[in-house]
Every structure is written in structure tokens, then in C-alpha cells.
């Protein structure tokens, strides 16, 4: 399969990702630089899981949000939107390719974390999958935010406002044993399943089973992807 010259939006993103060599090195190194030392350190396991989770959420949200707002600012995305490609398909491709590229950036760091904390294979697989679904969900948030601004700086601001409550509900730092409404809300946040799976990898007990880590975030992501793709026509319409 030929990626360059690109004949699809996602191939264009892949080509650009690998063509900016310096940026590529930075993108591949920074997750390792953050997660590697944390995974090798003796800090409490719940914080190791939290650090990986935060890196995944931030990388995902800013990945598509920043690239989309940048393309919207340039006007190039508006031009692409005037081709016969469906806007929903463009948004889906943006989501899918950004989530995969973000995953590619995080994978070496994850493998290093697993090396330092050997766990049952099923939990390592579940955690890896959960990181991917987190990236998908975070990219969805990035695309959602891009509906309201063309400024990459605003993406940071809005993302913070959206992500903080979600991170709190997911139990990364506080709210470790939620109950009532908090527990009910937690079930709908994909980040929570990643947090549970990573905690299991680092040796902590979790009420979530590996099967739940595979099934529930997948269902949540399908719904969220569908909803975000529906914003395609608005997202790609000219900003006056």
C-alpha cells in the first residue's frame, strides 16, 4: 500500500508525521522520557498508572485538536472540505490516524514500563488496549474542541476544562474508591478502565476484569466517535 503521494486524508497525515524528522524524534522520545523514569522508580503504583494515563490523555487531546485547528487556521482543511469527500469521513480519518500515531508514540514507553513491572500477559494486553481507547476518546475530545475554536492555545484551555473533571472521575489521583454518582459516572469514562488496567499491571488489585477493559471502552468509543463524526459538517464549514 502506497502512502506517499497520499490518496487519502489519513495517508496525508501519516506522510506528514514521518516527513518532519526532528518533530518525529521529539514525539517518540518525550513519552519515553516521562514514563521511563517513572516506571523504573519506586513511587506508589497508583501514581505510575496515573502518569502514564495523563501522558496518554494529553497526547491524544492535543494531537488531533492542535493539528485540526492548525489546518483550519491555514484554510487548507476548508479547501479539503470542498472536495466530494464527506466531512464525517474526514473527521473519522483524522480521529483514527491521530489515535494510531499517538499510540505509536506511546508504545515504546509502555513496553519499557512493562519491562520494569512484569505482569500477567492478559493485563498487559488489556492495559495496552485501554491506552489505545483512551487515545481514541482523547482525540474525540480534541476534535470536539476544534468545533469551537481555531486557536491551538484555546484547545489547551478548553481541554483543561473538560479533562480535569474526567480525570477526577476516573480516579487517577483522588477519588480512588468512588461510590454513588461518582462511581456511576466513572463507568462511562474510558480513562477509568485504562487506569484500572495499568494499576493491575503495576500489581494493584482492581475490581475491573480484563474482559471489561476490552468491552466497555470499545462501546463507549464507538458512541463517542459516531457523535464526533456528526460534527464534521460544522467543523469543516468556513469560520466567518
Amino acid at each position, binding site marked *: 500500500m502506497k502512502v506517499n503521494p497520499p490518496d487519502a486524508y489519513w495517508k496525508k497525515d501519516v506522510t506528514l508525521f514521518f516527513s518532519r524528522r526532528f518533530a518525529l524524534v521529539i514525539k517518540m522520545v518525550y513519552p519515553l522520557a516521562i514514563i521511563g523514569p517513572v516506571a523504573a522508580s519506586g513511587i506508589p503504583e497508583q501514581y505510575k498508572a496515573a502518569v502514564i494515563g495523563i501522558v496518554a490523555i494529553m497526547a491524544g487531546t492535543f494531537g488531533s485538536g492542535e493539528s485540526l485547528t492548525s489546518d483550519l487556521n491555514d484554510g487548507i482543511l476548508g479547501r479539503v472540505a470542498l*472536495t466530494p469527500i464527506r466531512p464525517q469521513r474526514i473527521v473519522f480519518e483524522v480521529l483514527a490516524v491521530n489515535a494510531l500515531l499517538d499510540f505509536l508514540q506511546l508504545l515504546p514507553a509502555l513496553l519499557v514500563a512493562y519491562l520494569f513491572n512484569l505482569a500477567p500477559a492478559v493485563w498487559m494486553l488489556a492495559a495496552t488496549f485501554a491506552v489505545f481507547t483512551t487515545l481514541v476518546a482523547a482525540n474525540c475530545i480534541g476534535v470536539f474542541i476544534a468545533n469551537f475554536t481555531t486557536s491551538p492555545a484555546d484547545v489547551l484551555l478548553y481541554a483543561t476544562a473538560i479533562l480535569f473533571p474526567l480525570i477526577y472521575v476516573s480516579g487517577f489521583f483522588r477519588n480512588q474508591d468512588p461510590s454513588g454518582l461518582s462511581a456511576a459516572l466513572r463507568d462511562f469514562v474510558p480513562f477509568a478502565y485504562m487506569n484500572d488496567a495499568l494499576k493491575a499491571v503495576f500489581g494493584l488489585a482492581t475490581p475491573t476484569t480484563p474482559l471489561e477493559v476490552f468491552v466497555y471502552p470499545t462501546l463507549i468509543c464507538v458512541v463517542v466517535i459516531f457523535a464526533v463524526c456528526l460534527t464534521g459538517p460544522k467543523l469543516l464549514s468556513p469560520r466567518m
Partner: protein
Amino acid sequence: MGPNGSGKSTLLRVLSTALRPDSGAFRVGGTDSLKSPRVVRAQTGLMVDRPTHYGDLSGWANAYFFARAYGMAEEKAEASLTELFDYFDLAEYRDDKVKTYSYGMGKKLALIEALAHGPRLLLLDEASLGLDYTSQLAYQRKIRDLKESGVAILLGSNQVDEVESLCDRVAFLHRGRLIQEGSPEELISSIKGVRRIEAALRNPVGYGAVEEVPGVARVVPEGRNLVVHCEDRPGIVADVVAGVVNAGGDITDLAVRRPNLEDVYVKLTGEALLNEG
């Protein structure tokens, strides 16, 4: 044609389906553009006034991406792009990153992207602005060829010479409204009693005195030269020349021409402003 803010780009945005009109409808090749915008987009070639590209991709990769986005098969896209890159003298630079392109090269690339898929409707906004002379000739030849082959072309431009030589019909817009429409000949013949005096000067001069000459409607400096729009009355050329000389101008060449689209433009925008007043 129309002054800045008259609605040329907005009209092209509406026709390209980027914007929905407040009211009304239009069809492209029989297809209702509001109901089936994607069908219309597939038949439309578009070049916006400030084209943008993916700077880290090559010119070829940009053009290929758009050609495929318009549904062209791989082989057809390659054949069409090869021909157009040759035609616009970009073949040598096709593999260079677009961020290294000059403004004019970027415009040529945008033209290639607009033409590659063989559109039935071509929407061009200030397409030739920034092109070098040779490229402008190539562009004009291509537009004429496309017109001969049955492509409908709508050109938004304020370059009078280009519009006069390329367009069958000219529409003047002012503040979002159509104020005049017709063939260039019809429009030019509609302004009877107008002359255009072009004076080439050795040095630039103040032209206030020329504006005071009875019958002079407007004086436009073009570098060191003056273009005088005036009534067609006996003796006016001598009066204008005297005005220029009195202002300290040393005339090296003088031409009295029939009105052109520029005079129509000046007349129409002036009338529109007067009507508003």
C-alpha cells in the same frame, strides 16, 4: 468584478458550496447545489484567492491528494497531473516541498489542483494575481482552451485587461448586489461620451490641477504616468495636456483611447456610491 468587499469572494464561496445562501438556489450541470453539494463539488474546480497547501508535502503530493479526493483513478490522476505540471512549468519542482515554493508557484499549484480532475465548472478567485508574465499567458491560453471545450468558468477579478480579454460576460458587484451585467463590448459601449487619456511623464507630478480641468472625472496615477478619465468634448485633450504641463509634467508619450472596462468600473462604482448617498 467589483471593489473590495463587494461580494466577489462570497459569491464564489456560495457557488463552491462552502456557504449556504440566505435565499435562492442554483444548479450545476442540472444538480441542485443545496440538496446535493457533494455531487456539485465533484464537478467543480476551485481556486481561492489565497491558496494554501501542506507545506511539508511536495507539490506533486499536494496535487495528487486533491486529484484523488475528487475521485480520480490513480493512473488518470498521474497522467493529468504530469500534463499540468509540464504545462505550468512546475515539473522541475514537483518533488520539492511546497514550503520552498514562491507565491507564484503556489498559485500555479493551486491552478493545477483546480483543473486536474476535469471540472465542468471552474471557479477562480484572482487566479492570475502573482503569476509571472509567461505563466499568465499560459494561464490565459488554458482558460480559453477550457472555454472552447465547454467548461463554464467564473472568474472573480479586478484585473481589467484580463477580464476584458478572457470573459464573454462581465458582472459588476457592489455591496453584495449585481449592479450591471453584459458582454465587455456592451458595457463599454454603454458609457458614451467618455475618453481615456494616458500621459507618460518623465517625472511624477502633483495632479491636482488636472482634476480641476472642466470635464475631467477622475485622475489615476500609475507610477510616473497619469490616466485621466474625462468627457468626450472638443478641446479636452488640449486642456488636459495644458493641466499636466502647468503642474510641471514633462510628457514623453500621450495616448487617447476609447473607454475600457476600467472606465465602466469607475463609472459604475461611482454611480453606486452616489445612489447610496
